[in-house]
């Protein structure tokens, strides 16, 4: 396999173009509702990127987004769609809270944090593992199961926070605060930016190496692109499916754990609302690459942080959801056109040999179509 420089250069161009186009639409929407998008853009840069507190907010949001993106990206490599990062984050938060609340105040901080973190990863892995097992053993569409399980998880958390884990005498359904000893140290003094992001960055690098440089990663890739060939080559596709899902879920579970022990310090319904779905955007923007997910997560964190600025300018923050949806649609369309050589034809350069798979290639929805850039 030789490195195709032209492809490499063309790689980020399409997602970036999709983002720019979607932002332009967002700008039009803001203009339509009486805002000044240019001025607002300047305000966002001032308040988020050039401000100590803004940067800390951005970093605090980037941690769960990056981990949620990895939760989608790992199964994606195996040709699987994990639409359940949302639920896996909730379950990670639940498991981490249960462990964190049982920590004595005089416990060793490192041990306590590690225990809560691992519990969170376990919670996410188990929740995602169910969908993996159903897919591997019964062939049940993982998109539907992971989606439906999000609603089950949300209600489980809501139940836990209003029943078994409810803080005594609390006016609203939330758990007691976790002890100081399990709280994540901060990256920036007096802010909300905790070290969860550093763990997320490390997980991204490890995931990239595992996927790109190990025999396991190669197996995942083959299982994703050609399950028939993988089976023939002695790769246990079913086991790969379950492991890819469990690892993805573990990353999401970490996000949930960090959200509790790093930021919110207690459990309540919807404590990490929307991060799982944003994780999908992160993963697809990054073409399923954990390292590019860092860039995509930073961008999505910027969008999320910008919501505060939008609101303070009296504008409607739902424009951000529209922009996200457009980014996914534009990026998915653009990458497909690129893969099929449409841009090459458009610019009438030397056309590379067509690499698209024949339309009759392989069976199910999840086995077809890859989202690599």
């Amino acid at each position, binding site marked *: 396999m030789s490195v195709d420089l032209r492809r490499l250069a063309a790689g980020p161009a399409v997602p970036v173009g999709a983002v720019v186009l979607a932002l332009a639409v967002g700008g039009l929407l803001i203009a339509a509702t009486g805002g000044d998008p240019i001025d607002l853009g300047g305000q966002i840069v001032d308040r988020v990127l050039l401000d100590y507190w803004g940067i800390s907010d951005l970093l605090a949001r980037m941690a769960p987004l990056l981990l949620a993106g990895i939760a989608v990206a790992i199964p994606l490599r195996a040709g699987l769609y994990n639409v359940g990062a949302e639920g896996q984050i909730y379950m990670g938060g639940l498991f981490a809270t249960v462990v964190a609340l049982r920590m004595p105040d005089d416990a060793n901080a490192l041990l306590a944090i590690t225990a809560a973190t691992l519990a969170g990863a376990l919670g996410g892995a188990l929740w995602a593992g169910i969908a993996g097992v159903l897919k591997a053993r019964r062939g049940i569409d993982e998109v539907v199961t992971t989606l439906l399980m999000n609603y089950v998880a949300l209600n489980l958390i809501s139940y836990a926070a209003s029943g078994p884990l409810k803080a005594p005498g609390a006016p609203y359904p939330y758990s007691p605060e976790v002890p100081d000893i399990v709280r994540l140290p901060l990256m920036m003094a007096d802010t909300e930016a905790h070290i969860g992001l550093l763990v997320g960055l490390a997980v991204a690098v490890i995931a990239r190496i595992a996927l790109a440089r190990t025999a396991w990663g190669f197996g995942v890739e083959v299982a994703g692109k050609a399950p028939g060939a993988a089976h023939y080559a002695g790769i246990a596709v079913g086991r790969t499916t379950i492991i890819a899902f469990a690892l993805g879920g573990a990353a999401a579970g970490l996000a949930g754990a960090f959200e509790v022990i790093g930021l919110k310090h207690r459990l309540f319904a919807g404590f990490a609302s929307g991060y799982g779905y944003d994780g999908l955007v992160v993963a697809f923007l990054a073409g399923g690459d954990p390292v590019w997910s860092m860039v995509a997560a930073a961008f999505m964190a910027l969008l999320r942080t910008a919501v505060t600025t939008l609101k303070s300018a009296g504008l409607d923050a739902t424009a951000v959801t529209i922009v996200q*949806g457009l980014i996914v649609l534009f990026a998915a369309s653009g990458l497909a056109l690129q893969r099929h050589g449409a841009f090459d034809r458009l610019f009438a350069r030397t056309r590379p040999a067509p690499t698209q798979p024949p339309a009759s290639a392989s069976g199910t929805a999840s086995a077809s*179509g890859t989202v690599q850039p």
Partner: protein
Amino acid sequence: MIDLFTNPTALADLFATMLRLSVPLVFAAIGGVFSERAGMVNISLEGSMILGAFGASWGAIAGGSAGFGVVAGALAGGLLGAGFGIATVYAGANQIVAGIGANLLGLGVAAFLHRLTATGRAAENRVPGFADITIPGLADIPIVGKALFATDPMTWAAILAVPLAALVLARTGLGLRLKAVGENPRAADVAGLSVRLYRLGAVTLCGMLAGLGGAVLVLSQVFLFTEGMTAGKGFIAVAAVILGRWSPLGAAAACLLFGLSDAIQLRLQFANTDVPYQLFVVLPYLAAILTLVGLVGRSRAPQASGQFYRRESR
């Protein structure tokens, strides 16, 4: 719980609730069947439903009657379906990925427009919806009478849409061509069918039907649009399509099953106020997952489902 099945009034109530909760799902699921039979996995039903719900609310208020709401709801859902179709059929975007994007877009646009148009006064946001039409005599039939013959027009539209969709798919040239496009697009193409046009048409119709499903929520049930009011119903409809093995009758049966589990959970919720409601709320979702586990192993999706068709690759 026991008297639920022995007491005729309670049973009639349960039946009526089941039907009412199934109707939005039935519209969306029939749409899903058309889409999937044409080879398009469409998980953007949720987005089309919420847009349909908003469209219906806006249309009914602006036009002053439920009829405008139905049209606007179907159009709003269909627009998203067409957008999804252009991205997947013409640009070749992955159907699952584009479906996720379309769901986000539908959710965002519905919320955005709602906040733009809704006024602070609740009375002005109330939607002129459908009233129940009671057919004397028939409505007195025990158990099913009240549910079937003292109901709103949308319920009847749903009941009629199921056999109509089955008929179209099984007995008309249009249905045959749609299925050909979904089973073997290359053969359909060789036979002179425009695969892309049929697929775009199928997902647009699918979006319109899902939009109608959302419209039912507003026009027949809640009489008010609220953000996130579809709460995963579109995804349950997707599960119903699979569970019903890609047939309108099967999908409708699956919707009734989900409606029944939803009706039972509501009943249990009100009867057991000391038990946390969340434990009941999850029942329909669990029912959907468990029935998939129990039943789906033996079914087969349309051959070309989920695959991009590219003419040049012939």
